[in-house]
């Protein structure tokens, strides 16, 4: 009898340890060697705020830079809507969330918010009326921001023209519609602690960490989430699916991550979202580049590169080494026979801009060769780009690929997606019409 009790106890302890391990998430910079200190005790160059060239600017100018670095616009703007007026729909498995209006309109925006209200929102995820925000709003990242930076962002938002635009109410299913439940989630997953520099690392690394973790919140998309939907830093930057698009592995793994990119290449990709031979960022990452990263000062891009280069490699065996060889000038009969429908659509709708070889005759942003998207055997992002189209800012102006989601059937989009990965990628995909139907609806609209 006694032995039985001991066995039960041991089992319970093991279960608790396992549960704790699943629930426990290390801090965002815990992977780095050396211990962290409070900002006030840090002797190195201040990693927070704006770059030196802007430091003497007024608070609105500094706020503009920080607002872009935090990429508030991407989520707080409906497709084709007024920037920061909200209304973007996040289609989640348990319902739809709408981003709120953060222009200074007093009735429908945040015009009545005090400084303390704004700090509370970004640091604690609590609205002025005491209700809790959902972590689609990345306050576990923004909590790392200093008060000065938070208030500079507020000053910039309050300098914008107020836009009167009601936010549509969320349509979340029970129990997810109970906002108070987020109180417990926050206890676990919101540190409510400002960024802690690491004196063992360089000044650039610390600035890069502040940019990536506090402002840019890279991990919110690129790090997988645990059972409780918290960013799981045990798999930091190892890649995840967010809003229907695959945010790829950005660890230093040479095959499935970005470990083979040198410093210059990484910097160029961050600043432009495109490097010849490595493809082009599209979807949410394209937006992150266009609205945020391309506006960053070169020294901040370099700091981000230093930080990214320090991320431990995690291999994702589902992603092959990207194929860097061009495809043939024209498809062979055998290749066409394998996927006649895909080949037909590619010839009619895609080849004119993208070219048959994977090297675009029109512009390098439309190149396929070497890009991660066509080298992803799930074809998820290929399909999303086809369904929704792509708009990107280049140094030579805006380029656009039209969305084909309303022009082609799910079967046709699946066929041409599979054709594209087979012809231009390292491994062919087997995406189905049913997949297309599902993932198309997952994208934020």
């Amino acid at each position, binding site marked *: 009898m006694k032995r039985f009790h001991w066995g039960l106890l041991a089992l319970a302890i093991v279960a608790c340890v396992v549960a704790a391990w699943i629930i426990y998430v290390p801090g965002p910079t815990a992977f780095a060697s050396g211990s962290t200190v409070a900002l006030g005790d840090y002797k190195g160059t201040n990693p927070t705020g704006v770059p030196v060239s802007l430091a003497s600017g007024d608070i609105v100018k500094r706020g503009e830079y920080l607002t872009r670095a935090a990429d508030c616009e991407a989520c707080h703007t409906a497709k084709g809507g007024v920037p920061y007026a909200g209304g973007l729909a996040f289609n989640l498995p348990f319902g739809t969330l709408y981003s709120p209006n953060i222009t200074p309109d007093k009735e429908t925006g945040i015009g009545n918010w005090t400084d303390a209200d704004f700090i509370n929102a970004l640091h604690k995820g609590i609205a002025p009326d005491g209700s809790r925000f959902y972590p689609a709003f990345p306050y576990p990242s923004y909590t790392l921001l200093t008060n000065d930076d938070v208030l500079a962002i507020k000053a910039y938002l309050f300098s914008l023209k107020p836009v009167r635009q009601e936010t549509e109410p969320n349509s979340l299913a029970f129990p997810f519609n109970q906002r108070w439940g987020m109180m417990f989630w926050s206890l676990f997953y919101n540190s409510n602690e400002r960024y802690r520099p690491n004196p063992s690392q360089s000044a650039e690394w610390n600035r890069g960490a502040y940019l990536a973790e506090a402002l840019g919140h890279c991990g919110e998309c690129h790090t997988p989430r645990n059972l409780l939907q918290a960013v799981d830093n045990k798999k930091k930057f190892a890649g995840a699916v967010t809003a229907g698009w695959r945010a790829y592995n950005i660890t230093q793994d040479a095959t499935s991550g970005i470990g083979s990119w040198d410093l210059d290449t990484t910097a160029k990709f961050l600043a432009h979202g495109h490097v010849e031979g490595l493809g082009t960022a599209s979807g949410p990452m394209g937006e992150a580049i266009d609205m945020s990263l391309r506006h960053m000062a070169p020294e901040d891009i370099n700091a981000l590169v230093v930080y990214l280069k320090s991320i431990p490699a995690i291999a994702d065996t589902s992603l092959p080494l990207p194929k860097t060889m061009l495809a043939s000038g*024209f498809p*062979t009969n055998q290749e066409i026979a394998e996927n006649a429908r895909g*080949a037909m659509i590619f010839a009619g709708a895609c*080849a004119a801009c993208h070219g048959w070889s994977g090297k675009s*005759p*029109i*512009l390098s942003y439309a190149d396929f060769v070497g890009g991660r998207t066509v080298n992803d055997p799930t074809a998820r992002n290929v399909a999303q780009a086809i369904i929704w189209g792509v708009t990107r800012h280049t140094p030579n*102006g805006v380029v656009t690929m039209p969305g084909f989601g309303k022009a082609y059937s799910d079967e046709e989009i699946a066929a041409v997606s599979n054709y594209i990965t087979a012809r231009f990628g390292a491994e062919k995909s087997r995406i189905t019409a049913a997949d297309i139907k599902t993932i198309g609806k997952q994208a934020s609209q």
Partner: protein
Amino acid sequence: MITLHVNGQPHDVDASPDTPLLWALRDVLGMTGTKFGCGIAQCGACTVHVDGQAVRSCQLSIGSVGDQAITTIEGIGSSDVGAKVQKAWLDLEVIQCGYCQSGQIMSAAALLAHKPHPTDEDIDAAMAGNICRCGTYVRIREAIKKATAA
């Protein structure tokens, strides 16, 4: 000011680098043989050659052309392949309304310049991006074969 090399002649174009080549050709240089169809590289009416490659000029910015040689429907007849294609087109009365045909001829000439003896599959692949509302596809394929034999 951007200099474009069109049909062997340099032309100075006073337009911003993000202007589509098609706009520069038609509105600035007055070469209206190249047609505007869809504006999003889906129909092929605006096809010209840039260094011998068939490209959709509605989606190509003049800033990215550089010193590359541009050939339009106005100049294609001066190359051997181009002249053969044009003759075949006339011999077989390929054209109905004609709006897409500048683009069709440019795509056909680019194909034959790279592949003097294309298979049916090559023709399909090269010509699929050029659409014709009148449905002249059968005669287009015949004419390409005729130009090959000539």
